């Protein structure tokens, strides 16, 4: 309707994912995308026409729009268009905070919008003139202190989660407030972002864990195992990732882990990932967990797609790692070394 074109790659997309037991939706986004905006425009037109005669129609317009938003929110939450599947305990904690803020802000939303709509409906003041009231100290005090109290609560309640996510423990810091070096990890790897892929270098778990991961991150060794655009670990592993970039800022985004960290040129940023759940089903099939880049890094920013595989146990992971190692030693060593020039991406310089 808007553009003419031939490609139909996106047609036939899966609709919203239905959650078992959820009540049926009022409408399906996929089917209503085209007519719904027009229908809503029509309703706005009707509200305007009615308002020419009845001024209170404006309350209906406000009410309708605000109700629509509340409805969309509820519908999305129910239909799975919401927080992605959670892959770790810390992700559950983040979701808990999210829903706490959602609940508190919803109260304020309903309160303020309710009052606003009421003022559109309220009867004219007696005598047609409103009282000349300039303010009220008590009210000002109340609506200063109540939000302040709630906000301070929100500020405090999030502190432990943030500290856990960034691995802060008072004491020795590995790098300016990030992971303390003493925090044990089961798996160590570097993730190096570059235009436009993620390069993973795994420390071989047969070797003893290096004392200084920062030093290890800066010095590739022959026994390291390489992978591109694939993050592997096993369920229950604590994974220390050393995040780096060779060119511009990228941001390593793992939606299921509620994990996101920019990679900063010139820095190696340590991060810890707790892998509490696996995405391998009992029958061996894999649910897709994707890696995305969240910081604009050039024209192909949208293409820095990768995948996460959390194996069911360490053995399954080691199988993968050893396969990877075998195929790696087949290739010439130089091909695996970092960084390799990528001529095709430069063609138009």
């Amino acid at each position, binding site marked *: 309707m*808007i*553009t003419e*074109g*031939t*490609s139909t790659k996106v047609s036939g*997309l899966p609709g919203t994912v239905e959650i078992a037991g959820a009540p049926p939706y009022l409408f399906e*986004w996929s089917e209503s*995308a085209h007519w719904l*905006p*027009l229908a*809503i425009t029509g309703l*706005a*037109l009707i509200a305007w026409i009615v*308002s020419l005669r009845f001024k209170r129609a404006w309350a209906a317009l406000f009410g*309708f729009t*605000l109700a629509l938003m509340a409805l969309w*929110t509820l519908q999305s939450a129910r239909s799975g*268009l919401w927080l*992605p599947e959670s892959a770790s305990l810390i992700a559950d904690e983040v979701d808990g*905070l*999210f829903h706490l803020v959602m609940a508190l*802000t919803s109260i304020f*939303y309903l309160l303020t919008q309710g*009052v*606003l709509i009421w*003022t559109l409906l309220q009867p004219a*003041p007696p005598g047609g003139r*409103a*009282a*000349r*009231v300039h*303010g009220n100290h008590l009210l000002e005090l109340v609506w*200063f202190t109540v*939000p302040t109290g709630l906000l301070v609560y*929100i*500020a405090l309640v999030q502190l432990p989660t*943030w500290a856990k996510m960034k691995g*802060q423990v008072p004491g020795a810091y590995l790098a300016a*407030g990030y992971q303390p070096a003493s925090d044990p990890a089961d798996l160590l790897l570097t993730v190096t972002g570059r*235009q436009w892929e993620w390069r993973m270098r795994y420390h071989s778990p047969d070797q003893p864990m290096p004392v200084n991961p920062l030093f290890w991150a800066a010095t590739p060794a022959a026994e390291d195992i390489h992978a591109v655009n694939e993050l592997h670990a096993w369920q229950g592993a604590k994974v220390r990732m050393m995040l780096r970039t060779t060119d*511009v*800022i990228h*941001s390593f*985004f793992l*939606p299921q882990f509620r994990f996101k960290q920019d*990679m*900063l*040129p*010139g*820095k190696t940023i340590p991060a810890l990932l707790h892998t509490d759940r696996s995405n391998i089903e009992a029958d061996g099939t894999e649910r*897709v967990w*994707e890696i*995305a880049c*969240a910081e*604009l890094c*050039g*024209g192909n920013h*949208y293409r820095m797609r990768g995948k996460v595989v959390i194996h069911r146990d360490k053995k399954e992971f080691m199988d993968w790692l050893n396969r990877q190692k075998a195929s790696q030693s087949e290739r010439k060593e130089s091909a695996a070394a970092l960084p390799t*020039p990528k001529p095709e991406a*430069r063609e138009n310089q």
Partner: protein
Amino acid sequence: MSHPNALHAGHHPGFVRTYIFSTDHKMIGLQYLFSSLFFLLVGGGLALLVRLQVGYPNESLGLLTRLIPGLARHIPESWGGRMSPEFYTMLFTMHASVMIFLVIIPWLTGAFGNFLIPLMIGARDMAFPVLNMLSYWFMWPAFGLLMASFFVDGGASGVGWTAYPTLSSAALPDGTLASPAARHAGLGQTFWLCALLFAGSSSLMGSINYITTVLHLRAPGMSLLRMPLTVWSLFITAILQAVALPPLTVALIMQLSDKVFGTVFFLPPGGAQFGAWSTGAGGGQPLLWQHLFWFYSHPAVYIMILPAMGMVSDILPVFARKPLFGYRPMVYSMASIAGLGFIVWGHHMFQSGMDPRLGTGFMLATILIAVPSAVKTFNWLATLWGSDIRFSAAMLNAMGFVSMFVIGGLSGIFMAVTPVDVHIHDTYFIVGHIHYVLFLSSLFALYGATHFWYPKMFGRMMSENVGRLHFALTFVLANCTFYPMHILGIGGHPRRYYDPTLYEFLQPMQSLNRFMTISAILLGFAQLLFLANFFLSLFLGKRADANPWGANTLEWQAPSPPPHGNFALPPVVVRGPYEYGGDGPQDHQPQTASA
């Protein structure tokens, strides 16, 4: 529209001095207004192209390619009639740059700041009329550079309005104008940096002028605490600009120098490796840019909302026929928003690699800044409570502002919760937030203010019915366009993606993306109603007398439109601006003793 100098006998400066290089604050205000409306069209067009791409990532642009001049050169053969990913990045970069630096800021501070400050404080003109004229004319090189950059080698800047190094700042290799970091970060980015330097200088000149004018040229009796909130807000905004712009200017010059002269302010000691091209050693720090940029750009978001808050605070009482509730809390909360606004910039950098302990500090300040925002909202609602509302187009837009600002403020709290921000940072949630505060708040305030002060500017009224129709359509369609962005963001949909359908977890969201695109197109068309109303009313609007709304502030004591010099006699102010309602003989008492 009558000749602005008609009442000033014996002083005829001629066409060029009156309409083009004018030093009259009202004419400069109108120049800003007309330019902003034009830029709004340009920025809106860019936004629709962005939305088309995200909603229909795999379809050819077809007819559009031929309709829009210059578009064809950005549709390479290899993309089969689709725009290239690079062009897409240019579109959203330029959309944001135009909207922020050439629409919202100039419309609020340039157009209304210029037009209203002297009139509302009872002055004859600004303190520095020539500086004022210069500040307007500095905007045009900015616009020219931004638009010209689409046609230079590599195209316009495509590194986002935030222009993070090293993508943006990589030095151009000797003798070339193409950046090794990205095709669209070469000459175009240099143009962008220069454009921002012009826009920034323009704002800075304006702000010095406003501060001086408010401090020195107030009419007798106009104490600071009798100033209308519009003046307060513009005054505070001017202070914000004066303090925040110098660091931005420095940052822009540093990036320009990195790019053109090969300095290394933003290049880390180890340098950077772009494919086969190595920059050599650096010695700087890419994060420095983010600190400098957000030290300006966070206050800048308040520059883009405070004047809107001020104008809404002046419109609500007039149509509620009731005093503004809590004048002093309103002033104090604006001042504290401005003050706190300087210590929250790090909330844009929670995931940047900044020390996470620093993030906690910025989080606390950010959470606190929601308090004055809440206080303002409650005072607006209390102003409306028990009042006798008149549903003018100006009033509806002002009420739309209050309603939508609540949503923008509440979504801010999600992002201020650092663990939650980890997930929603750089997703569509942020895009939703900024559009609730900038489109659905600032722009509604601007529409309302334009309806409200139009009679004073042109001596005619805009059509109320068309204005209300425009409001109704804009209100619902803008919500359809921007509300679902929050839902996408919660699902993890990153912003600035050329083709989200590559990702399995984003595919279920694509129908929502289309819904937003179609709503956006309808929304774009609805804005033509406003433009038509604005331009046709210049000639066809009902004639307005001096005070068509029965308002108290000083500008309504001057003729519509006010002559050169504004007031026949200097007005003497005897009371505050919000004496509405009550049981007196009149339902309002102007700020001067005699009407």
